[in-house]
């Protein structure tokens, strides 16, 4: 079955279907959107469960798009993206459920939401560079509009402009890097497997790699809020509607990281060798600097936004170690963080609806007031500081092993310290001021989450816990794929590293 095609097409068809429903039919519009993303999730789950580890590319759809350029509409899953697609589908479903806080122009919002979901899932499922980029932009443009029109807060216009310009710049840099890859390999094809096969035979000229890799690294890095290009993220998420923030922080932002793992490292391994040292230090800056910024926040959304930027540091660090465990851990954290960020923004969206404010100094005692949302938030905050049992822990600890064994010892020590201490500090403070203590004055009438949202958020939590207790579900297939990339970069990579992953995976 072409599961991926169905997964990607359903939201896009839903966007078209919503277009034909009159704007007053809110229930129908919501129903179509939730139904489509629910079906997508079901298909993603089937695909994930029937995925054959070590079976190469699966669920392929390949159609010639532009013959003269070697451009194909090519969807396929391998070990790296199957987990991300599942995560994306879960987050998409949860985001659709949480989108009922939109009260004006519901129809337009849901068209954009469906487009964004289709774009996101398509970007991760694409095996063709052009569509890889195309779908990403298809998801990005609705993001900008949604923040601009349905966003909140006084400076949403500024936030819209900032996020638009930053992300466009990142996307364009990456585009030039991608075109560079296409031109330099001489493969006359945009298909990623074809390109990888070509560079295995004859790698791209080393001097060209030194251009291509930084273009891709910084281009994709800006998309994934690499320090010092991260300032759009907390601002943008603070102003975004709930569903948009969930989808962007959860899934779309991972596109940049995915691009580095999927394209930059295999295509320009020599460039990677000389630039990943820089990336490791920038990753540290993400962890340390953004972590410290998060400590100072009084607004819950700003705190989540900054901590989510800080968490990107783990993933960058995993990538920078350029070994099998590091990349495996990076993908694992991508998935874990996606679920976590969606959960956190979903909850903060619910809180915002109650009083129109996320000022943590005015909250308090909400655990008693709203037991469901409160305990979910508690678990999200604990997962955020890397408590064992949640998927984040498995990924983060793997990355520490990887960075240590890659010789980045100083960075590992500081990173571990900052992750545990700083992360613990701001998460615990948030727990105290939001959930415990006397109830804030404005919150007397606050109500708990509706059953629909509770289901959605419960799904995210469940996934976090399942992957936390059994990371092997993901790591086995990821490992298989990233080993190939690492072998391209370091032909002499020894088997002991693969062994170490096994240990970490358990």
């Amino acid at each position, binding site marked *: 079955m072409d599961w991926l095609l169905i997964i990607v097409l359903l939201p896009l068809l839903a966007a078209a279907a919503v277009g034909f429903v009159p704007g007053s039919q809110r229930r129908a519009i919501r129903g179509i959107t939730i139904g489509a993303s629910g079906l997508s999730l079901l298909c993603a789950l089937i695909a994930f469960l029937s995925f054959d580890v070590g079976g190469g590319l699966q669920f392929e759809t390949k159609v010639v798009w532009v013959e003269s350029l070697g451009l194909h509409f090519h969807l396929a899953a391998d070990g790296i993206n199957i987990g991300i697609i599942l995560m994306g589908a879960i987050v998409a479903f949860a985001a659709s459920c949480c989108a009922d806080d939109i009260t004006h122009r519901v129809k337009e919002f849901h068209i954009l939401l469906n487009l964004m979901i289709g774009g996101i899932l398509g970007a991760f499922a694409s095996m063709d560079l052009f569509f890889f980029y195309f779908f990403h932009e298809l998801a990005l443009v609705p993001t900008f509009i949604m923040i601009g029109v349905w966003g909140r807060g006084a400076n949403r*216009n500024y936030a819209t*402009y900032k996020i638009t310009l930053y992300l466009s*710049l990142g996307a364009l840099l990456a585009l*030039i890097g991608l075109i560079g890859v296409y031109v330099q390999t001489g493969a006359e094809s945009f298909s990623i497997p074809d390109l990888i096969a070509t560079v295995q035979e004859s790698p791209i000229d080393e001097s060209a790699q030194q251009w291509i890799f930084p273009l891709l690294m910084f281009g994709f890095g800006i998309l994934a809020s690499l320090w010092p290009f991260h300032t759009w993220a907390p601002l943008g998420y603070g102003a975004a509607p709930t569903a948009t923030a969930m989808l962007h922080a959860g899934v779309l932002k991972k596109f940049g990281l995915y691009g580095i793992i999927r394209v930059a490292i295999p295509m320009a391994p020599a460039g990677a060798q000389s630039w990943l040292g820089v990336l490791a230090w920038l990753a540290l800056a993400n962890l340390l600097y953004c972590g410290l910024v998060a400590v100072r926040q009084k607004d819950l959304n700003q705190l989540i936004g900054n901590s989510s930027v800080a968490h990107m540091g783990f993933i960058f660090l995993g990538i920078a170690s350029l070994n099998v465990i590091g990349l495996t851990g990076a993908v694992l954290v991508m998935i874990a963080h996606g679920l976590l960020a969606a959960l956190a923004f979903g909850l903060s969206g619910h809180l915002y609806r109650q009083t129109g404010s996320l000022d943590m100094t005015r909250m308090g005692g909400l655990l008693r007031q709203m037991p469901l949302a409160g305990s979910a938030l508690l678990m999200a905050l604990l997962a955020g500081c890397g408590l064992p049992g949640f998927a984040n822990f498995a990924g983060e600890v793997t990355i520490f092993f990887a960075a240590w064994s890659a010789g980045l010892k100083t960075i590992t020590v500081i990173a571990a310290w900052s992750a545990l201490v700083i992360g613990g500090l701001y998460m615990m403070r948030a727990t105290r001021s939001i959930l415990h203590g006397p109830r804030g004055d404005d919150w007397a009438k606050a109500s708990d989450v509706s059953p629909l949202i509770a289901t959605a958020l419960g799904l995210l939590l469940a996934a976090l816990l399942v992957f936390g207790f059994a990371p092997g579900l993901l790591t086995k297939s990821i490992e298989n794929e990233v080993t190939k990339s690492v072998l391209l970069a370091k032909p002499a990579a020894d088997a002991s590293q693969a062994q170490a992953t096994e240990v970490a995976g358990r």
Partner: protein
Amino acid sequence: MDGQLQFIQLEVMVVALGLLVLLADLFLSESVRRSLGYFAAGALGLVFLLSFRGSYVGLVDGEAFDGIYRLDGLALFFKRFFLLTAIFVLVFAVDFASRLRSGVSEYLAFILFALSGMMFASSANDFSLLFVAIELITVTFYILVSFQRHRMHSLEAGVKYLILGAVSSAFLVYGIALVFGEAGSLKFDVIREAHAGLLGSNVFLFGMLFVFAGLAFKISAFPFQIWAPDVYQGAPAPTTTFLAVGSKAAGFVLLIRLFGSVVPELTAQWTSMLMVVAALTILYGNLCALPQRNLKRLLAYSGIANAGYLLMGIVAQSREGTVAILYYLAGYLFTLVAAFMIINLLTREGEGEDISCLAGLNKRSPFLALALTLCAVSLAGIPPLAGFFGKFLLVKSVAAKAFGDVGYFALLAVAVFGVVVSIYYYFGIIRTIYWSKDTPDNSPVAIAWPTRIVLGLCVAAILYLGLLPNKPINWANAAAKIETVAK
């Protein structure tokens, strides 16, 4: 002679149609005259269809009038391009007629004469035809620009265009004279053979530089762009559209033919200069567009920036580059026609082309709001629309030329910078449409059905060129194949 006339049958039909319109004006009543534009557009549609006729297409790769006139894939592509542009502009002109006050039929006829000039330009294979065609375009545009005689702005624009246009014509004709002095012929075929040996001659180089300057004026490339904002703003909207699309494309078909096929060795020698011109044009256009509040002026500056992007295709000096230019121009045609038409609909009454006239457009007419949004997004080069694919091809052609070379890299960097800047001001348009607080006018917008059809066609074409590029790329490839491009 009979066989030779076959080659110019389309041009003859267009000129005859122009004369017919002038004649009909004498005999028709006021009310019938109003729909003369639709008749002319319909007749041009017929000419457009005739250009696909087997017996005409069979003439491709032939030459007429002693090699002065060449009909190849490139010429055919551009003839169709100009015909399509003129059809849209004529429909537009009917919409605009009430504001011209007098001489509507003459206005239509001049559009047709300018069209014939453009069609001749696409086939020019000799400096004499090149000059005559360019002058035919420019002189008719002097009139078209200043057609609203009751408006100071229109007259001012006309005078500016006249003075600067005359200077550029002087450049052009002086350059041609110098080239003739060295090469001993005006024929492109002779110059093509001889030019490699003339690269050491300063007279020849100066001549070609002046010719380039003359053409750079037509496409409004830096430093010959100064006229564009004032003229675009002051001219009647259909003229602006025709100027922005048709006249610019005419400049590009000549640049492609001349610098891509006639003097490729010289182009290779001038690569750095072309790169600098392209980069400065992109920078100037985009940076100056930032503070603009007048929509026509904004589009003028964005037009300058787009000329810079298009020049990247010339810089690439390859068939890929030419294909990219053709693709980009095709997308540009539909985008600009739609954008100018919509702006015109909203400013029907007054002079106000201020960006604030878009406020609340999504409530007044969701269709227009959607169409203008698509135009802005396409111009900004965001997938999945025509503008993105055009820019993608242009960047790819430059990257393929020499990836990693610092100069090319700088050009790509400038292009990226330009695109990011442009997103800022195109986004301003979208923002005004959808979320401006002040919406003074909430009355629905009345749209005549031919205008509606043209807008619908434009939107469909923008989407088609962006989503299904397979066939259009093959057409552009076929059109660019005829060129003898230097390796």
